Structure formats: structure tokens, C-alpha cells
């Protein structure tokens, strides 16, 4: 399990932004429509939050191909965004007493050992 330094991040802390970062951390570059449909938020809401994250340098937005020749927006976490997200999740896990490590695929989260 990789140990990550817990760090509260005010930008990632917002409910929608946290979920956006989580999806992008799992899926990599992801289309706007998939994010919107998976998180069940409206287009303007998602656009606003993606813009905030982009302005902070946490993600990159790019235009790419879509079906039927339409152009789609793709979002991808930057290294800075990934680090901010990992640190914030580690912080959340620390709050509820879980070990701040990020479990690798297949591992379950470990409870924090109680002090002796």
C-alpha cells in the first residue's frame, strides 16, 4: 500500500469536484458526457466545476472526437490534481480512523492501528 501524506484541499473538498476527481483518477481521460451521466449532474454544474479545477491546474480540458462527427470535451487530471486528490482522500480516511495509505487494486483499506 502506498503511503500518501494526508492534506486537506479546499478545492477538491467540494462534493461535485471530489467526485469528478475520483472518476478521473480511476478512468484517466474521460468524456464530459460520461462524467455528467455517471455523476448525475447538469451540464452547467459540471462545466463550472471543471473550469474551477482547470483554472487551479488540477485538470486539463481538451476537445476531441465524438460519435457522428461531433466534437466532445475530454477531461484529464494533471499530476498536480492527482496529488491533490490523493492527499485529500488520505485526509478523509485519516478523519475516520482508516490508514492514510491508498490501497492498490485488490487490497482492502486497513484500519489505523490503535496507539499502545
Amino acid at each position, binding site marked *: 500500500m502506498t503511503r500518501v501524506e494526508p492534506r486537506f484541499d479546499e478545492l477538491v*473538498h467540494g*462534493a461535485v469536484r471530489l467526485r469528478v476527481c475520483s472518476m478521473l483518477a*480511476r478512468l484517466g481521460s474521460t468524456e464530459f458526457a*460520461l462524467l455528467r451521466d455517471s455523476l448525475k449532474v447538469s451540464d452547467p454544474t459540471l462545466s463550472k466545476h471543471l473550469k474551477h479545477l482547470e483554472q487551479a491546474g488540477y485538470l486539463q480540458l481538451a476537445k476531441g472526437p465524438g460519435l457522428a462527427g461531433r466534437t466532445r470535451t475530454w477531461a484529464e487530471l494533471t499530476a498536480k490534481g492527482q496529488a491533490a486528490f490523493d492527499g485529500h482522500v488520505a485526509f478523509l480516511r485519516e478523519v475516520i480512523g482508516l490508514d492514510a495509505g491508498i490501497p492498490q487494486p485488490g487490497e482492502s483499506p486497513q484500519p489505523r492501528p490503535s496507539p499502545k
Partner: protein
Amino acid sequence: MEKPSTFQVGKFRLADMETEDLSPRGVREQLNTLQADAVVAGRRSAAPLWYLTAQALCCAVFVLSFSFGRWEAMGFASAGVALCLLGMLRPVITGTRADPWAYRRSLKVGAVLAAFLLVMLGAGMFALGPGSPPAVPAAAALLTFGVTLALGIRMERAFSRSVTDAA
């Protein structure tokens, strides 16, 4: 301006305005929501059944092409181009560039699939030809289609699980 009061959460000291949902209960809810999103992400990142069927069909046509005689090049080219197109279209169809070949679980299944296809290619090169009884290439194509589809579905399931389980 009044300085915001601070609040102790574990070893962290935060200002009140940041702490509206940082109680253990609130945090647990947030993490549960993220886990629910992870399940959705896993499901949405998998290719649809029609895509896997099309892939299996291309592989079957490729194997069948060994029996086409002077048209075999046409068969190879068509199947090959279609497979490449499907690969290029995958991100557009699934909405994500997440790739089954990048995850250990699905890569293992993919390796078995690749090995099977190599065996069928070898069988096609040495055992199939324009003079083969029709039942032989048909059986080879059917076998290729069935196994490719089954392993393709298995690979996508492994991929979905990996996406769901990833941190």
C-alpha cells in the same frame, strides 16, 4: 474582519468555514459516495456487447480467410482494418481512454486471448486452404468467434473490477 474560529479534526486544525461536512459521519458518507461512483465508473468503462461481438467476428473472418483462395488477401485486409477501426473507436464508444490492456487482471485474460488467436493463426496457415473441406474452416471460424467473444467478455469484466477497485 472577524477571524474565523478554528476546529480540531484529528490532528488537523481547520477554519470553521471549511468544516461543514467533516464530521466522521459526513466523511464516511463522502467516501461511500466515492465507492458508489467507482462501481458506476467500472460499469461504464467496459465496452458494450455489440463491440465485443464485432471484434470476435473480425477475428473469425480473419481465420476463415485462409480458405478464400485468391480472395484471402481481401479477407485479411477487411478483418484487419475493421479490427483497427474498432480499436480506434473504443474511446469514443466508451467515453474514456481507460484501456483493459493497462490493468493486470484484464491483461492476464488478454494474454490468454492473444495466445489462442496465435494458435488459430498457426492452424489457419498450416491446416486451412482453398482445398479444405468447407466444414473445417467453418468450424475453425466458429471456434475463433466463440472463444474470442467469451474471453473478450471475461476481459471486460476483469477490467471493470479493476477500475472499481483502483484507488
